[in-house]
């Protein structure tokens, strides 16, 4: 072992280690002078407290002045109503079951004449019982459509516990308190999501078509917090891309069915065509025309991806 150790190259000291070594040297020098050794440290301590006293205190006197909270403060959960698709994920994941959602279905006229009318979930009630909520933030985490946000607002105490159930208008009002996220520290790794958005944006023409084709709920996937994002569509599609990218084909299917356009925009150019072979095979297997066409489109995308 000892021999091996000798062969190892000397490790370059880090900046921190260099600093510590320098401090130690200074301290040694001071300690060597027997008289001023301890006195130096004592006087330095006194000077620090005195200096602090002459500076302004950092206290923010809360009830009299509004505290300066960091943008990501987890004060209360706010709802951006337009983004909600009533997928119920938040309500199901909530450990306290404190999110109440009511909805009904509505028929939406088809986009192209002659097509089948679509049904869509319409949100009737979205309420959070903040007397049960434990502020774990799982609902914000799971929301796939950026409808839930942490808002820095925190002054919503009530004298009656029943009043802590907050309904849609209140939750929506709190969205106004959400601040844009702070800029990254210098030299920090770029935010992975931000990176993806940039890529989506670079893909060019296809991206513009993406939001329309992706069937993103309510058409707008705007995130109020992400003002720097290239556009509402890009933000929306970027959310759903990763699943498709990591594709085992089964996953790709899910991704393609959910948001085929973004996947396409990422990897390929040009519109999706129908893979005739698969289409005929599916039809022959007795599948409905709609399913056959979807499978054929998926097959086309997979094939094209394999090619290039």
């Amino acid at each position: 072992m000892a021999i091996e150790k000798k062969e190892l190259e000397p490790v370059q000291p880090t900046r921190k280690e260099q600093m510590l070594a320098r401090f130690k040297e200074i301290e040694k020098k001071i300690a060597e002078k027997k008289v001023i050794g301890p006195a130096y440290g004592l006087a330095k301590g006194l000077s620090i407290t005195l200096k602090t006293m002459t500076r302004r205190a950092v206290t923010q006197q809360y009830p009299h002045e509004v505290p300066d909270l960091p943008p990501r403060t987890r004060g209360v959960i706010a709802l951006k109503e337009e983004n909600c698709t009533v997928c119920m994920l938040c309500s199901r994941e909530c450990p306290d079951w404190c999110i109440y959602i009511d909805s009904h279905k509505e028929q939406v006229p088809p986009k192209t004449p002659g097509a089948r009318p679509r049904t869509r979930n319409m949100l009737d009630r979205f309420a959070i019982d903040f007397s049960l909520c434990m502020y774990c933030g799982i609902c914000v985490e799971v929301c796939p459509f950026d409808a839930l946000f942490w808002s820095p607002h925190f002054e919503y105490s009530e004298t009656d516990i029943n009043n802590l159930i907050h309904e849609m208008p209140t939750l929506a009002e709190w969205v106004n308190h959400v601040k844009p996220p702070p800029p990254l520290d210098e030299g920090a790794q770029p935010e992975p999501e931000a990176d993806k958005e940039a890529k989506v944006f670079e893909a060019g023409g296809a991206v513009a078509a993406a939001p329309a084709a992706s069937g993103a709920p309510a058409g707008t996937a705007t995130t109020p917090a992400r003002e720097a994002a290239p556009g509402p569509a890009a933000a929306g599609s970027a959310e759903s891309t990763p699943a498709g990218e990591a594709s085992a084909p089964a996953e790709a299917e899910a991704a393609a069915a959910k948001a085929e356009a973004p996947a396409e925009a990422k990897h390929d150019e040009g519109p999706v065509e129908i893979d005739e072979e698969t289409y005929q095979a599916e039809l022959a297997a007795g599948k409905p025309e709609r399913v056959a066409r979807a499978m054929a489109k998926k097959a086309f995308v997979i094939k094209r991806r394999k090619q290039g």
Partner: protein
Amino acid sequence: MTHLSMIPAIAESHNVFLGFDFSNPWVLLGLKLAAVMVFFLTAPLGVGYAEHKILAHMQARLGPMEAGRFHGWAQLIADGVKFIQKEDIVPSAADKAVFVIAPAMVLVPAIMLFVVLPLGPNGFWVENMDLGLFFALAISSISVIGMLAAGWASANKFSLIGAIRGAAQLIAYELPLVLAGAAVAMQAGTLSLPGIVEAQQNYWFVFPQIFGFGLFVTASLAELSRPPFDMPIADSEIIFGHMTEYTGIKFAFFLLAEYAGIVALSILAVVLYLGGWQGLPFINFIPGPLWTLAKVGALAFFIIWLRATYPRLREDQLQKMAWKYMIPIALVNILLTGIFKVVF
């Protein structure tokens, strides 16, 4: 050699109080007692409030801001009202009589100390004893009995550890305190506190007695159990020492005694070393009592400053410091003072 009878202001001062001549001894006595109580109840509050604020600002905080509207000036009054309202708990295992009387044993000597302390010339003191310095140092060490009583009567190990620590600390630091004071008495040639102040007419004793001054201030910090010498109440180790089991007004008495002690020992240090009411030669229009109070304020600020800055010493470091360094230095200081006194 200055002798008491050589100073006219002191020799004729038996009926003079606060600059007025009183012929009726009862009126005089009543006034003196009232003055002691008023000073005893206000000055510690001032120091306490200053400590709240200075400590806070030294830690980049604001301290009390609400009570009394303006920068929390009434905080300590509010605290007092709160302490009075609190439940007065006596532990069932406690030695009740001793437990109840212990706060008084700490408080009364703290009040009595103010009897001899002079604030200004022409009778700005309650009593001018010939043995004033002796009286002050003796009475200030009585409080340790109250401390021991409180610790023992509480029937609580933390209280007992705190009390024993306090006793050991006070014995260790009483010596350098008395020895430093003795050197001053030698130089002044009197034990009377106004006499010592008068003896500093030409120069303050802090200059010839610089080591003595350092010893005196350090030892009085330890005497008061103030940080960095607060091992007897070290709240991170032994809860609150001898005060652990005390609540309400009894606890407030201990705190009041502590802050009164800061005021008293600051006045004593000012009298012994900083020239008492003697001002600087150019600024003669400021009255003597204000000079004393300003110096006391500066010293109290220094004591608070030390609290904000230094961590607590370990118990053995404390003892080592007293017996191995401070007491020998104090003895050498006395020796040198004696030599200089004889030679010059």
